């Protein structure tokens, strides 16, 4: 294998693994604030128990997110030295701001939130939760701005030495790509955490444990969940798709396995791309819809891959195609599940319907898959570029690091993260089995 393949495998694996944790904590931060607000509004201490329970799950997730996140920042330097050298003058700003503005707030207020419930009082504790929410969502924004620059570079100039420099701060920070990608990403994170909260509520409820707390988790989980799922499709997913259709036309063609240009382009629901023969086997399609989704008119012409030079095609069209379809397919399914659950809640039947609670309980892993597939769509779709149109991924690696060294570190991460994953599941499983504790936990020495 080429060195660049090892580098990409290493980055892809470590970032995918890392992002399993922040997608839950960013969403949970919002839900914990919701629980704390409901507690103050309604005066029911059960909301505090629920918030405390989820704070524990948050703590474990946050810790694993932190320790798996630190290597990501350093990998830009260790494995992608020529990329850091080329783009560091621009993307370094948001990496620095993330540390300075977001991580400091997050880490300081996490300590206060987890250990200071008694000291801070109910309002102060809500304040700490809100700061945690702000910190984690701000951190997400800076990372998305960084990624958006790689997808759609704006606000830069090229210095005499060839490196990129920041020239327009505001157009960099408010890159339209960043705004829609952020909205799409955050509603996806809220989707994950609502599904997880609803699943734990369903589990307790089916086991006939903690009925009050199970009810809160189910109720809040499905209402927030349905909202997030709908936002995921429209406007955020829609606008994200249009940006791809405008700025990354070969990517759109590859996502849809569309080889030839056509007006009134079909939307592919399912089918297997055969890239060598340039066709799609066993297709099931909806006529004209792709033209409408991409350009707002059923008659619009959509370019196919053959309209672009082959060296601008994404280099793994099959995987990109499937990841995109897995994301969209699951997103659609989530709306159906959450809509059914909210309907049952409205009719007062959610706590009786065994089938619905089973479905909710078993759905918990799927938003993780959808989030991962979405990110793989974004990152595979950007290929063969690391900074779209400016630097190719093959030109971004570290010239002084051997393939064997990268392979060594990849194998090390695989082993370490496997052990970490087992321990994590064990601890979270225990916490779920323990259930919400009725006494304040967090103040102990």
């Amino acid at each position, binding site marked *: 294998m080429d060195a660049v393949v090892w580098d990409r495998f290493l980055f892809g694996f470590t970032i995918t693994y890392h992002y399993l944790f922040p997608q839950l904590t960013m969403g949970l931060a919002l839900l914990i604030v919701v629980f704390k607000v409901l507690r103050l509004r309604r005066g029911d201490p059960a909301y505090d128990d629920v918030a405390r329970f989820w704070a524990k799950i948050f703590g474990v997730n946050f810790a694993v997110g932190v320790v798996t996140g630190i290597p990501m920042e350093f990998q830009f330097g260790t494995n992608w030295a020529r990329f850091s050298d080329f783009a560091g003058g621009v993307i370094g700003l948001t990496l620095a701001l993330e540390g300075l503005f977001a991580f400091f707030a997050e880490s300081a207020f996490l300590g206060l939130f987890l250990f200071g419930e008694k000291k801070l009082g109910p309002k102060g504790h809500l304040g700490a939760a809100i700061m945690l929410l702000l910190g984690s969502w701000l951190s997400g924004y800076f990372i998305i701005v960084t990624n958006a620059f790689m997808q759609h570079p704006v606000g830069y100039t090229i210095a005499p030495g060839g490196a990129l420099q920041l020239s327009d701060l505001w157009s960099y920070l408010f890159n339209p790509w960043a705004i829609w990608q952020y909205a799409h990403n955050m509603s996806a994170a809220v989707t994950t955490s609502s599904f997880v909260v609803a699943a734990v509520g369903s589990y307790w409820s089916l086991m006939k444990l903690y009925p009050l707390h199970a009810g809160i988790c189910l109720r809040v989980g499905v209402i927030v969940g349905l909202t997030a799922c709908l936002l995921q499709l429209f406007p955020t997913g829609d606008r994200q798709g249009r940006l791809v259709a405008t700025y990354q036309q070969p990517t759109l063609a590859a996502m849809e396995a569309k080889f030839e240009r056509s007006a009134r382009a079909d939307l592919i629901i399912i089918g297997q791309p055969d890239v060598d023969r340039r066709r799609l086997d066993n297709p099931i399609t909806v006529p004209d819809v792709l033209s409408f989704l991409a350009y707002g008119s059923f008659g619009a012409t959509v370019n196919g891959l053959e309209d672009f030079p082959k060296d601008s095609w994404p280099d793994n069209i099959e995987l990109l195609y499937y990841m995109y379809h897995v994301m969209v397919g699951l997103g659609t399914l989530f709306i159906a599940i959450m809509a059914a659950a909210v309907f049952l809640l409205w009719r007062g039947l959610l706590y009786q319907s065994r089938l619905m609670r089973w479905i909710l309980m078993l759905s918990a892993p799927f938003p993780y898959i959808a989030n991962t597939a979405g990110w793989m769509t974004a990152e595979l779709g950007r290929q063969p570029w690391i900074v779209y149109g400016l630097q190719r991924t093959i030109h971004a690696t570290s*010239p002084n690091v051997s393939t064997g060294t990268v392979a*060594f570190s990849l194998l090390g*991460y695989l082993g370490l993260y496997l052990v970490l994953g087992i321990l994590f599941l064990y601890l979270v499983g225990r916490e779920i089995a323990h259930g919400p504790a009725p006494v304040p936990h967090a103040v102990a020495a």
Partner: protein
Amino acid sequence: METAWFALIGFMLTVYVVLDGFDFGAGILHLFVAKTDEERRTVFAAIGPFWDGNEVWLVAAGGVLVFAFPRVYSAALSGFYMPLTILLWVLIVRGISIEFRSHERNPLWRAFWDAAFASASLLIALVLGAALGNLIRGVPLDGTGYFRSPLFTNFLTRPRPGTLDWYTLSVGVFTAAVLTGHGALYLWWKTSGLVAQRSALIARRCWAAIGIMAIAVTAATAWVRPALFEALRYRIWAWPLLAVAVGGWAMVFRSIVRGKELHAFLGSAAFIAGMLAVTAAEMFPTILPSMIDPAYSLTVWNAANGRQGLWIGLAWWIPAIVLAVGYFVYLFRSFRGKLTHRPETGGY
């Protein structure tokens, strides 16, 4: 402007070492100063609310480095690939051991994480010190602007050294000793009873050793890279920094004798900050010295981002750091005072 960023990164790294240093030291020591599970929990409670925030200073400094000096970031991180990868793994183990130990009462589970925490803390202190040693000794940077530093070669500083050689290892050992002493003073300040007594005893011995080691390491540095001391002769403004370091060391002893815990801890913080500041003042304007040819060294002049970007960055850095310091003051105030033993009800 470039000089300002050199100072800012130096400042952030110094704060990092002073803050994360005390939880490394506490980690190295906790097997010895805290024997029972109750005592161990006191140690974890003393660092629990802080360690994660302390580590953020490293992450933030890394982000600032890639922005201000992208060439240094790409050359140094790829050049030190192996030691850095191992350091990151150890950081993962350390973070996890703090978080996971409290979730299970099983004594074997706790013994395992305690040992993992102690050894990871020690290893990181050694590696951080060795990293500093590498910056002082220089690396084989060539005309491509990159270098490759294996983990070790034959442990000699020339002609083709690894990341670990006798000199960088000795800086590593010195650093581990300093952070152990720093952590001991922190525990003496924040805990009471037996843990505090044992910490005070270790601190006294440790700081005596640090005084001897400081002289030895300084002599070794003069031998490995004499140019550094040349620079110091002409930079009179750097001399007070040296006085801060020596004064900090003296203050540690005075305060131990008089039983002033906080003053002793501040003394060791001053010692660390003074030592690092003197080193940075001697190094300037070089960030990553080349041992092949000084012309290949990366300096604040040839490795920096463009001026416009640096100004934009500075406008953001100032309010950010004010906020960050505010959070830390608030956090430390919220958890001020000594910890007392409490029955276990969760948390740490």
